[in-house]
């Protein structure tokens, strides 16, 4: 157990240092994040010109929703799918198949290192810009539950992306499938618009899919109340549901990994 933790730590630190060499690539988020938010700022100000609320959101809550979703994305961002597919397609996965650690754990350790760097370069400055320049209240209503939901969102995003990445064990070029799935995931996670904007029947479907736990749930936990498809849950209850969903997704991922790894064949890389 201690050896595993040390391995995770070592891989995380190595990834942190590797990406720190390309920190300008990450730091460009300081331009992109606020620019996207500025567009949202104008859109929603225009939409709320003649109304107080829209689908249960006031203007302040709507801006907070997009601000919070953006900063949470910097903490949970993931590209395990792309990385795994690249390793399988190029045959480089063979070196991981020989290591005394499952690749999913290696990838998770890499993500921890990558996002630790993202925390300083992306999350902290953009959080401060949103809070003090745009004056949008993105402070969590219940900080401890906010930390819990972000950790769970971090894991859920990784698990879903890793499962998408594993399609490469069956398909020659899985890039198209990956992009289709990620697009659906982003829509269903509430990244583009709060899920409460969707038709009632669709909201009911979205409630039972795992995607809401990536962005919609943590954002609502930050705001301090949760509602989807007419279902209202307290913050501890929805975080509990999120924990259950993450556990179920982890089981699915491990099962898929067990089946997928048997299909891999690498040639003299």
């Amino acid at each position, binding site marked *: 157990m201690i050896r595993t933790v040390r391995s995770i730590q070592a891989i995380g630190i190595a990834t942190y240092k590797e990406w720190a060499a390309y920190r*300008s*690539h990450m730091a*460009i988020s300081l*331009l*992109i994040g606020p*620019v*996207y938010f500025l*567009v949202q700022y*104008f*859109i929603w*100000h*225009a*939409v*709320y*010109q*003649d*109304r107080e609320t*829209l*689908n249960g959101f006031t203007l302040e809550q709507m801006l907070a929703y997009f601000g919070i979703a953006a900063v949470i994305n910097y903490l949970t961002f993931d590209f395990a799918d792309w990385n795994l597919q690249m390793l399988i397609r190029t045959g480089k996965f063979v070196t991981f198949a020989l290591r005394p650690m499952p690749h999913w754990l290696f990838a998770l350790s890499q993500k921890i290192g990558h996002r630790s760097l993202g925390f300083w370069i992306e999350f902290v400055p953009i959080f401060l810009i949103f809070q003090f320049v745009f004056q949008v209240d993105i402070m969590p209503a219940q900080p401890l539950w906010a930390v819990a939901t972000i950790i769970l969102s971090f894991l859920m995003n990784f698990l879903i992306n890793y499962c998408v990445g594993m399609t490469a064990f069956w398909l020659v*070029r899985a*890039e*198209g*499938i990956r*992009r*289709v799935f990620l*697009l659906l995931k982003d*829509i269903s996670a509430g990244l*583009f*618009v709060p899920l409460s*904007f*969707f038709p009632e029947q669709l909201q009911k479907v979205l409630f039972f899919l795992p995607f809401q736990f990536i962005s919609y749930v943590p954002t609502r936990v930050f705001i301090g109340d949760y509602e989807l498809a007419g279902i209202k849950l307290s913050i501890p209850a929805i975080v509990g549901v999120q924990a259950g969903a993450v556990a179920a997704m982890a089981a699915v991922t491990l099962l898929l990994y067990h089946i997928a790894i048997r299909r891999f064949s690498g040639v003299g890389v």
Partner: protein
Amino acid sequence: MIAAIRSTAACFWAVMRTKIAEQMAYRSHFILSVILLIAGDLIVPLITLLVYRSGATFAGWTLHEALLVQAIFGLAKGIAFPLFFGMVNTTLGLVREGTFDLLLLKPRSVLWMTMLRGLDLDDFGRLLSGGVLFGYALSGIDAPSIAGWLQFAALFAASLAVLCTFALLLSGLLFQWVGSSRVFDIFDSVTSFGMYPGTIYSKAVQQLLTYVIPVGLIANMPAVALLGRGGWETLGAAGASVLFLALGLWFWHAMLGRYTSAGG
């Protein structure tokens, strides 16, 4: 002159044939990519639809009028992306690998070769989504006048010039900022201002988006022309696109001059 045009056309056709053959080797992937591009381009219209469905509006714009802006944006991308934006990928990949030198050795303009190498057939799919949305948006507004269509044609050409300039700026940037695919994120974020009716922005921002970073020219001004809300003076804004294009060409060549080969 005729010989030069023939030579240019021959180059273009030769590359297109190769690209088509390349895509046909992975047909299912190609079809999936096109479908995905179409779906991706319909996200912003979907959000607009959801907002209007909730009873809210952009003041002074009906749903069809707001969708017209986004449809024109899609059409402009459907032409500009396959033709111009491939050169961003070309510069990104070749400069990183140190093989951009090969383009410098070709007996044609380096910019033309960079553009040709980056031709991307998938992106023509955007024309389909943009076209369908354009037809839908037009069906819900009064038929534009002949003058409106003429203004639209001139402003749409300006829109393509603006997008071409963005491709030049991003591609040029990659000679120095080696290997950063995040230039596409910069493009997406900056041009997202152009996907909504211009009147949602303050006057100062509207001026900025017309004359300084003319993303308002990509879709909003052509839409305004079709809706008959713009006078002929809006064509003056098209002049900004010409200056912007000149800036892009100068920048690209200046950055090419700073390119230092990896000596592969």
